[in-house]
């Protein structure tokens, strides 16, 4: 209802490949302390979607995937370091390294009257040396009031969905670190 744009379509939005964690108003931006003895190494990032270009439509506005999905996912996983998980891009030596392989299963946006929604599903597998874990699905979802399907509100919607995934990945990685 609030997103009425008459009959003038807005230009498509290409989501930025830079992930920005949502910040609560007034909250200090201090990353959680990382355990440098346990490092996550991002090893493979694969886009398994049948259509890698589109994320969907919100109030008639096309929303497109970042031009470099690999970069987008890598930047997102690097933000694990704001959640207490040390991240390495280059298998840097550490007492304990957890390898992370991720597949993007789906990523899409939609609208309902007065709202916009995002869903992202990643299949993540961890391995430590020869120990390979079962892949696990992580879903990030966000639903917000839709004002005018603007650039910032759509970008923040996607980032909010990614944040939910990161929080759950972070919890699992920290649990693996403790198990040794």
């Amino acid at each position, binding site marked *: 209802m609030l997103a009425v744009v008459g009959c003038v379509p807005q230009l498509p939005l290409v989501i930025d490949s830079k992930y920005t964690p949502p910040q609560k108003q007034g909250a200090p931006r201090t990353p959680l302390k990382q355990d440098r003895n346990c490092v996550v190494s991002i090893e493979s990032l694969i886009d398994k979607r049948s259509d890698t270009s589109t994320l969907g439509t919100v109030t008639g506005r096309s929303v497109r995937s970042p031009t470099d999905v690999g970069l987008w996912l890598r930047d997102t996983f690097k933000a694990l370091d704001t959640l207490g998980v040390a991240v390495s891009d280059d298998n840097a030596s550490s007492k304990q390294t957890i390898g992370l392989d991720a597949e993007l299963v789906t990523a899409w946006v939609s609208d309902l009257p007065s709202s916009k929604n995002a869903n992202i*599903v990643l299949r993540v597998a961890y391995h430590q040396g020869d120990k390979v874990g079962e892949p696990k699905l992580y879903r990030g979802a966000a639903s917000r009031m839709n004002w005018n399907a603007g650039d910032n509100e759509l970008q923040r919607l996607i980032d909010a969905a990614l944040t939910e995934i990161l929080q759950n990945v972070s919890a699992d990685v920290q649990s693996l670190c403790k198990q040794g």
Partner: protein
Amino acid sequence: MNKRISWLNIALLTAIATGCASVPKNHALAPEAHTIEGGREVQISVAQGEIKTNINQSNVAAAAGGGLLMALIDAGVEAHRAKVAEEAVKPLRDALVGYDFDARAQASTKATLEEIGWFAPRDYGFVKEINADARSARLDATKSDEMAFVDYEYGMSADFDAVEVNFRVSIANRQTPPKTKPVTRLYAANLVYHQWHKVVIPLNGAAKDKDANVIRWSANGAALTKQALAASLTQAQSMIKRGLTQSAETSLAIPKGARTTAGGYTGSLIEKVGTTTLLWIPIQDQWVLIADPIG
């Protein structure tokens, strides 16, 4: 099942009928228009990543006689309902990971169109995004005089008591009407043919509690949902065929059917076979088939 919002209507009317034209009555193809030299290219779309949710719209503003404050209350209520629905559907979406509705929709549509000999589908394309510019550009590129579009959308009813598949079949001319923009070829009034459809597969003995219904739809790898979607596609194909092959006389008689209510929908009765009811809903100009409940 109360009032439903047709997502496909909203999405497509926003994206394509940007001229806000009134709905025409081009719901029948005259026999002389059946055959097109060189056949018709076909584009199929499923513009969603997973099963969709739906909500009942809030009508505070309408009840209160309008006003910005009331509209804001409606927006807040609807946004909250959407959030609840999006949360409730998560187990079902997780259970459906790997289920490929898109491939099934493409396969069944191809089979149906090929059964209609005179339709002569020649090439098929598939897209995940519908927008007027891209569709108009696709029309420019076709080698046929006409091009057909079959757009699907699948989701849950607002109360999670039914699976619903919306779809629209349209045929557009490659030629742009004189003194108009190319996109006007896609306006409902200028289409050679178009018909909105919906198939509703209710959940037998559905609860009032959304979460309880989601548990049933999600159980055993979403077995019931997959069964409902397969049944929807089967029904959809017979509706596509019926729509494309009906005569103008049959089309014009549809609004004169007896006023009937079934599965929460009220419209003109087109047909009732056993417990399956086919209605025409005037306000959406849409055929709605309420099938046998499952589960």
